[in-house]
Structures are given as structure tokens and as C-alpha cells.
């Protein structure tokens, strides 16, 4: 086992952001009082053409990511970005199915182009003029943990900051009963190497298994807690509150990935 100091899988967290209905930023979320005017994500960092193309998921991912990258003070045009989502653009997909087989119309080429899982990663990279690494992952309720691990691998091998953003739209109710669905949610982090050159708010190590001693965030709405990305919101909440300990990242619905977090001195 690697020593703590030289463990290449241990990284720093330099910024975070989130978007949920009622909560457009972490400060509002921590206050516990939702803003009734926050109904839909704005996607303001997307250029106008790509904002029109982007789904609600794409806009929420962009909003959360922008907050995290701004806090971490990293260059949006060069920072590698990992996008995680359990069901991706399923809403767009079902819209296409409805168009083709429900309305017996030809498929919309524009909708088809943004029905791929990496549509959000694409519109974000185009808007940020980022010609570097971009990826899109999926692992159900393990999406937050695995997206973080993909980013940890990048940090370990490049020695540079990496942005991670996870989100999911509600599952189309044509496909699942409404009582097992969830609400839109997105959470983002910027990970940096622990090299003394990058300041960070906390240290992070993601493991498959562990002994959690931190409680997940309290959602007032049960549908929010069912979102596969709830673990990312739990992690952001714990880091923003300066907590130390081990947090389960899947709310009991995945394979048991955990995050060990340690606040950075002076953060």
C-alpha cells in the first residue's frame, strides 16, 4: 500500500458547484432555504447556439461546472473535463422515439445530434473552446464515484487540475413509474494534485468500499435523494462544511464506493 504522502490516488479539491431546483449555488443549498425563482438551469456559460442545443441536463451541468471552475480559478479552455450521468440524454432519446413512432414523423437531425450521452460534454467543450480531454461516463448510482476516479487517474498522470461534473435529468415517465423517479440535479468539483503548487480546500481519496462515518446531506424532497448523483451533492456538502471523515458516495444503492475527505489546513 502506498504511503499517504506519496499515494498517487489522493488528490485535492479546489472548487465545487451545484445546481438543483431551488438551489443555483452551494451557499443557497447550505442555507437550507430554497430560492423559489430557481426553476430551470440557465446555462449562461454556454454560447447562445449551444445553449439552444443543450438539454436541461446540459445547462445544469454547465452551471455547476462553471461555479466549480471559477472557485478553483482554472482555465476553462484547457482543463480536462469528466462528465458523469447515469441516464444522460434519455429525455431527448424518448422525444425522438415519440417523434418517430408516436407521431410517425421523420427523426429530427438536430435532436439526433444531441441525443448522444456526451452531448453535454460536447456543448461545454465547444463553448469553452477547450480542445483538450473530454469524456462522458455512466455507472448508475456509482457515477459520482467513478467520475471522480477517472479524474483522479488524469490528475495522477498529468499533474494538472481536472474538472468533474455529474448530473441527471428525471427519468422520462413513459419508461418508469413516477414514484421511482427523481428531480434534476448536478454537482461539480475541480480536483488538483497535492503538489504544494495548487491550493485546495480538502484532500480526497475515493475507494471501493470503506467504513463511512459521515452522514449524507439532508434533502427535503425524497425525489432529490433518489437522483443517482445525490452522492456528489453529499460530497460537496461535506467539503463545503469542512467535515472530515469517510462518506459513502452511492446512498446505499451502488457498490459501496466511499470518499475519504480531510479539510486542508487553513481552509
Amino acid at each position, binding site marked *: 500500500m502506498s504511503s499517504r504522502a506519496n499515494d498517487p490516488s489522493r488528490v485535492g479539491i479546489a472548487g465545487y458547484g451545484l445546481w438543483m431546483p431551488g438551489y443555483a449555488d452551494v451557499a443557497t443549498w447550505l442555507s437550507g432555504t430554497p430560492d423559489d425563482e430557481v426553476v430551470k438551469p440557465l446555462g449562461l456559460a454556454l454560447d447562445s447556439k449551444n445553449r439552444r442545443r443543450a438539454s436541461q441536463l446540459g445547462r445544469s451541468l454547465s452551471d455547476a461546472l462553471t461555479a466549480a471552475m471559477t472557485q478553483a480559478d482554472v482555465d476553462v479552455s484547457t482543463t480536462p473535463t469528466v462528465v458523469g450521468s447515469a441516464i444522460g440524454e434519455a429525455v431527448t432519446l424518448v422525444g425522438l422515439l415519440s417523434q418517430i413512432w408516436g407521431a410517425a414523423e421523420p427523426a429530427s437531425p438536430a435532436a439526433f445530434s444531441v441525443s448522444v450521452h456526451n452531448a453535454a460534454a460536447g456543448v461545454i467543450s465547444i463553448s469553452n473552446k477547450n*480542445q483538450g480531454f473530454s469524456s462522458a461516463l*455512466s455507472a448508475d448510482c456509482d457515477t459520482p464515484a467513478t467520475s471522480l476516479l477517472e479524474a483522479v487517474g488524469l490528475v495522477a498522470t498529468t499533474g494538472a487540475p481536472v474538472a468533474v461534473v455529474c448530473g441527471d435529468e428525471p427519468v422520462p415517465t413513459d419508461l418508469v413509474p413516477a414514484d421511482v423517479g427523481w428531480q434534476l440535479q448536478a454537482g461539480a468539483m475541480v480536483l488538483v494534485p497535492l503538489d504544494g503548487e495548487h491550493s485546495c480546500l480538502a484532500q480526497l481519496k475515493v475507494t471501493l468500499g470503506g467504513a463511512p462515518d459521515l452522514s449524507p446531506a439532508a434533502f427535503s424532497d425524497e425525489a432529490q435523494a433518489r437522483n443517482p448523483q445525490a452522492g456528489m451533492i453529499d460530497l460537496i456538502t461535506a467539503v463545503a462544511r469542512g467535515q472530515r471523515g469517510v462518506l459513502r458516495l452511492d446512498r446505499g444503492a451502488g457498490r459501496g464506493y466511499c470518499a475519504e475527505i480531510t479539510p486542508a489546513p487553513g481552509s
Partner: protein
Amino acid sequence: MAASRVRPLPVTGYTNLNALGSTRAEILDALAAGRSGLAPPSEEFGFTTMVGEVRTELPGLTGELAPWSTRIASMAGKLAADLEEPLRLARKRWRPERIGVFLGTSTGGAVSTERAYRHFVAEGALPADYNFQRQHTFSSLLHVVGELTGARGPAWMVSTACTSSGKPLATAQRLIAADIIDAAIVGGMDTLCALTVLGFSALQAIAAQPCRPFCKERSGISLGEGGALALVEREGEARVLIEGVGETSDAYHISAPHPQGRGALGAMEAAMAQAGCAADEVDHINAHGTGTQLNDGAEAQAIATLFGDRVPVVSTKGYTGHTLGAAAAIECLFAAYAIEEGWIPPSLNSEPFDSDMGIQLNTTLLKGDFKRVLSNSFAFGGNNVSVLLRAP
């Protein structure tokens, strides 16, 4: 923390499944004979096209995995079973929780949801046996492959459209370098579905006849299906080495390539930079080569910029069709065949060659000592991956 050096990664086993067959002999025979797997589709779409359907019998999943038994999961099951021999050795070398599973797909279970939705439109309800979680979500494939292989390490699906199954090779490199895993099952799979055929048709990107990559008269893609898995290990008896993987974004357009192939060029450069090799050390390129005007033009510009017309280029899409999320893994294995067998197949249907391309397109079976081979894949979202394989 100093950045970890990504070292050449041994590929200790692999298996391939596409319209040419599922065994090495079937696939090599077809490639050597210049025999395409493209044929009219088994489903009527209202227009003429050719597709590369998998005709190999795919046993359904049984026992506890039976509820996961979709066509794509059956493909995954077949590939995992065919990889068992090297996996058996790997399980002796590495603990199960140190063996990762990183797969790529573009459509995943979309074909199951498509069928369910058509039933929903016709009958007013989803079929009784449809389950969104088990049949639609990408993670169902992780469950199936994990159960069949005994791999218990980190596992995720990459879904970046047509680069999906190439990027897991880089993921495995990184996680081994970060000492998170010791080995990984990498690759991916995709099935044909009406949605993608109709979607590409809406984009006016489908050819009526078999696709003609880099041909002056190219008119679009032929779709296909299939999958490929490879076992990569920190140490082991390598059949080939993954020497470099370049991953870039065009940052240009959601569904059209950068006209000068900017992202493609960057991906090839990044793969070679990681390997520490120069352009004159690359012996062959398996191109993305889909057969559309824009894609082939952009890729050819990128290849010509780096290699001129020195390196023989082949597109194998004329054999298998464009297998979307599976294409990168399937074609990396075609690149491995070139290294191991010492020959490359002809690009099918590529004459008259578009001489404006400035590349050396190979249209005959060419024997040679192919030590280093690049395999390119490019995708919607401007996502690019180039994999550099080397002889051990």
C-alpha cells in the same frame, strides 16, 4: 505529487465480434479475401442501405443473469466467454478487486427501449418484461461483464458516441499508473437499432450502397454492430502493447468534424507524444474512415499533415460497417492483427480514390513489418481518440 509516467500497457488477450464473424480465423479470412460483411438490413427502413449485422449466434444469458439478457448483453456475454483463457491467468496474478472493467457504448440498451416504446405506442403500455434499469441503462453491461469475468474492481461505461470503446484503454493506463488497479477488461459493444439508422438518415449521412471510405464518389456511412474486449495488465505476456492514447476535442461543432481535422491531428500527436515516437516510426494507420465527405476529408488532411503519403492507410468500415460505440475497440484489434500477422487488408470500395486526399490509401492486401500502428476514432461532440499500438 509528481505526475505518474504512463508506461506501455501489455494487451494479454482479446476477442472480437462483428459482421465478419466472432473467431480470429473467420475475421482474418474475410479481411484477407477482401470480403465484406455488409448486407441489406433484416429490418425495413423505407430506404435502401447496407448494414453490418452480427450473424454469430449469441446465447442468451442464463441463471441469475437471465433478466439482463438483451442483445447487447448477450454480445457482452459472448465476448467475455471468449476472453476466459487469459482472464483465468489474470485472476491468478491479480486480486479480483484490482481488476477493473471499463467499457464503451453509444446506444447501449437503446434498441430494447426502442422496442418497448413501439409496443407502448401500439398497445398503450410498456411490455411486461421491459425493465429500464436492466435493459436500458449502460450499467447493466457492467453488471453482466463483472459477473461473468469475476472482475470486482472499479467499473464504468464510457459513452462518447463513436470514440466510446477507445477511451477505456486510456482509462486503464491511468488507473494502473495511479496504482488503483493492476489489470482491466476494456473495450465495448453496440447493436444496430432503427433509431440510429433513421437518425443518420435524417443527417443525410447514410449511403445506399456499401460505404466507400476515401473514395472520390463516397456518399455516406454503412452502419454496423459488434464488440471487442481486451485484457490489459500491469505486467504480462503481451500480444501487443498500448503505447499511447491521444484524447482531444474539436471544440468546433456538435456533429461535424473540424474541416481541417484539428482535433484528429491533436489526438494522433498526443498518442505519439505519450509513446515518445516520431511520425516516421508509425507503419500503418487504421483510419476512422466512415465514408462521408466531411469526415474522410478532415481525417485525410490531419493524416497528410503528419505523415504525408508515406504511411499505408486502411479503413475497415467497408467490412464491418460503422459499429459506432464499438468501432474504436474493434478497429484497435484490426490494428493488432496487422502487427501480429504482418499484413493489412485492402480498403473496400475505395476506388476511384480521392487523390486530393494526399494520403497513401491501401487498396490491396499488403504484407509488411508493421511494428507501430495508429487506430483513429472520431465522434459526435467533437470527441477524438487515437490509439498507438506497438509490437512487444
